[in-house]
């Protein structure tokens, strides 16, 4: 009965949507949280059930009904459960549950309360469909469903012009990715004949797909993934998505939706490994995004924007993992990232809640005295993401970097390391500026500065707990062959590539390097912002251009606008005014005018004089007789 997992939140969303207006707030929050809790329970049960199932008959599939069937295109509504999807369901429902609880407090006095929870449940439903879909079309349904929910939730406070704009931008950029995704699906349908994952894996193993075709399909699918997971070309929507309520950012733009791309790549891992080149591209794009986003995060002053860029960069890491063939490591980083990134977002949310809506770091400082619970949890999150040992971030990021190194992708590995330094730096810059140093809080925010209610802080604690222990699920191989439970659990789905063994010593060396990198990043942030607060201003003064470039996010938004949006809109306006109105309408009205002009000319003969009439008659006769003669 694992197929109940998505249906429960879906049912609750439907009930809230139709009857929401008349239900009291209390009931709404209970129903929303309970439905996610129930599906979390079921996914836990089915996770353990899965352990017992022999690997051979692994993807347990449940077909509800035949959805679309026409000619050779058929897509059934069938859900499947296998290690990969069960992990994702755990993440989605688990983190989702905590965020639901958190938002009960956060959105307590918002008038769109019912609407908010409807959208949140709808999102969970769509995400679960995406994760548990047994064929590509159903995955695409979930894919677009989450896109819709992100549009609804980003533009939740639609009175705000910027929120509505951000929502629209998110949806359209996602659609660009989805267009490529559809083409990828079609290619697979053309070659494999069906969208089911089992059929696809069978076809790949059977060698039906050539390497070139595999590359094309993989790249198309990856283009869709960049749209959804905010990678290099199509990441512009994520920073603006911070307009939405913070729990939304936590759930959608940190833990679940943006990781859909990574899930899709790992689901289609055979395709990517088969095509080699595509894996390389994924790796490089991931690495570039990691560095690129990290640099941008350096200069941001809005907490949520910093976290947004940090999400883009962390997902970059996941794609590095997938790119180098270490899909398990990528998934593991996704698993750990879900915890500490949502923790950071929720903590930022409770900071905002405390300062009644203030997000700008320059107007904070020394908050650790006032927020006894938020501060430590935020700190744990920051340490985890920085990659400090003994916390989850370190294990997953290190796994990815060691694999990259093992596969001989030194360039990617180097970029990864630099990204790690920057990550550590901007995270602790954030921590020091908000919680330490002089208080720069404005007066009116200061009076009712208060710690968030228990309903918000409890999830923070739980998430902090998980951020710590989540790492131990996938210990590095150096500590013992069997240590990495996580990747072994995923083996049936992700066929492990050739296991390259570095010497034990190099393993340790790599671990030390990443630890050193993390610590030095933290130290630099400490020097910059606590020891001598003057240094950042001096650096900015020396490199004003560089600072300005970073601060304005490399002007990417403006470039996109100028390169695509503006010419498209103005171009079609020009075409409409000239071609549509002048040329086509011109010809139509022109012919009408010509005929009526001809009428006028012919009418001139009708002069009213009898003689003219007889003249015309005579002309007729003469022409007729003349014609007869010749």
């Amino acid at each position: 009965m694992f197929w109940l997992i998505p249906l429960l939140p879906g049912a609750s969303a439907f009930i809230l949507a139709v009857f929401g207006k008349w239900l009291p707030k209390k009931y709404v929050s209970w129903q929303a949280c309970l439905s996610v809790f129930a599906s979390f329970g079921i996914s836990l049960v089915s996770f353990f059930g899965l352990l017992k199932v022999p690997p051979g008959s692994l993807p347990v599939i449940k077909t509800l009904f035949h959805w679309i069937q026409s000619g050779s295109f058929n897509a059934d509504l069938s859900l499947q459960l296998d290690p990969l999807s069960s992990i994702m369901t755990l993440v989605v429902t688990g983190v989702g549950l905590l965020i639901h609880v958190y938002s009960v407090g956060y959105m307590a006095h918002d008038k769109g309360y019912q609407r908010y929870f409807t959208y949140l449940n709808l999102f969970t439903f769509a995400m679960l469909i995406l994760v548990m879909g047994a064929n590509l079309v159903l995955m695409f349904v979930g894919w677009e469903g989450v896109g819709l929910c992100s549009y609804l939730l980003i533009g939740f406070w639609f009175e705000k012009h910027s929120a509505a704009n951000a929502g629209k931008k998110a949806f359209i950029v996602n659609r660009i990715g989805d267009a490529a995704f559809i083409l990828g699906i079609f290619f697979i349908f053309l070659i494999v004949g069906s969208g089911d994952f089992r059929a696809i894996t069978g076809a790949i193993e059977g060698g039906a797909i050539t390497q070139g075709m595999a590359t094309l399909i993989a790249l198309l699918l990856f283009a869709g993934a960049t749209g959804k997971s905010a990678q290099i070309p199509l990441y512009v929507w994520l920073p603006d998505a911070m307009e939405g309520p913070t729990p939304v950012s936590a759930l959608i733009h940190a833990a679940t939706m943006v990781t859909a791309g990574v899930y899709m790549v790992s689901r289609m891992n055979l395709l990517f490994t088969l095509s080699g080149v595509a894996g390389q591209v994924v790796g490089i794009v991931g690495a570039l995004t990691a560095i690129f986003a990290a640099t941008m995060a350096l200069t941001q002053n809005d907490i949520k924007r910093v976290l947004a860029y940090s999400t883009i960069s962390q997902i970059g890491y996941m794609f590095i993992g997938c790119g180098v063939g270490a899909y398990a490591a990528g998934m593991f980083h996704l698993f750990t990232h879900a915890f500490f990134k949502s923790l950071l977002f929720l903590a930022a949310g409770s900071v905002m809640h405390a300062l009644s809506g203030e997000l700008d770091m320059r107007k904070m400082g020394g908050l650790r005295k006032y927020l006894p619970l938020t501060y430590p949890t935020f700190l744990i999150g920051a340490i985890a993401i920085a990659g400090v040992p003994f916390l989850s971030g370190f294990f997953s990021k290190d796994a990815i970097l060691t694999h990259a190194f093992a596969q001989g992708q030194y360039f990617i590995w180097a970029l990864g390391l630099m990204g790690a330094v920057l990550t550590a730096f901007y995270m602790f810059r954030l921590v020091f500026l908000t919680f330490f140093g002089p208080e720069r809080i404005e007066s009116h925010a200061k009076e009712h500065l208060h710690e968030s209610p228990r309903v918000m802080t409890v999830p923070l604690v739980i998430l902090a707990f998980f951020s710590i222990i989540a790492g131990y699920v996938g210990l590095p191989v150096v500590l013992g062959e069997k240590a990495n439970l996580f990747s072994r659990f995923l083996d049936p789905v992700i066929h492990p590539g050739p296991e390259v063994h570095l010497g034990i010593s190099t393993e340790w060396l790599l671990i030390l390097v990443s630890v050193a990198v993390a610590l030095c990043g933290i130290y630099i942030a400490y020097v910059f912002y606590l020891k001598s607060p003057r240094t950042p201003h001096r650096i900015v003064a020396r490199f004003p251009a560089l600072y300005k470039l970073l601060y304005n996010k490399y002007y990417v938004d403006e470039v996109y606008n100028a390169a695509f949006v503006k010419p498209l809109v103005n171009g079609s306006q020009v075409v409409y005014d000239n071609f549509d109105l002048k040329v086509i309408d011109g010809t139509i009205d022109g012919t009408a005018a010509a005929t009526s002009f001809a009428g006028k000319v012919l009418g001139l003969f009708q002069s009213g004089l009898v003689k003219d009439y007889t003249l015309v008659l005579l002309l007729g006769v003469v022409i007729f007789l003349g014609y007869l003669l010749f």
Partner: protein
Amino acid sequence: MIPVGYFFSLSIVLFVLGIIGFFVKRDLITMFMAVEVMLNAANLAFIALAKAAGSPAGQVIVFFVITVAAAEAAVGLAIILLVFRQKKSIKAEDMRLMKG
């Protein structure tokens, strides 16, 4: 014996004269008389051709045409009279109340 051709060509000439008369003259009555000339020219052609064909039927037709021309003249002149009473002029140029 004058060959039939001469009569025939005379009638054609008369017919064309009638047409020219119709266009040259400015007042209605002479225009109507020009039409009468054309009709009689046609009669002449009839007689010439009947003589050539040697059948009396041709000549009989001429009488029909003459009677018809007479009836037409009666009604025509009455109309010209009517128009004169209305417009106080029988010049062809004044008859251009309706055009377009």
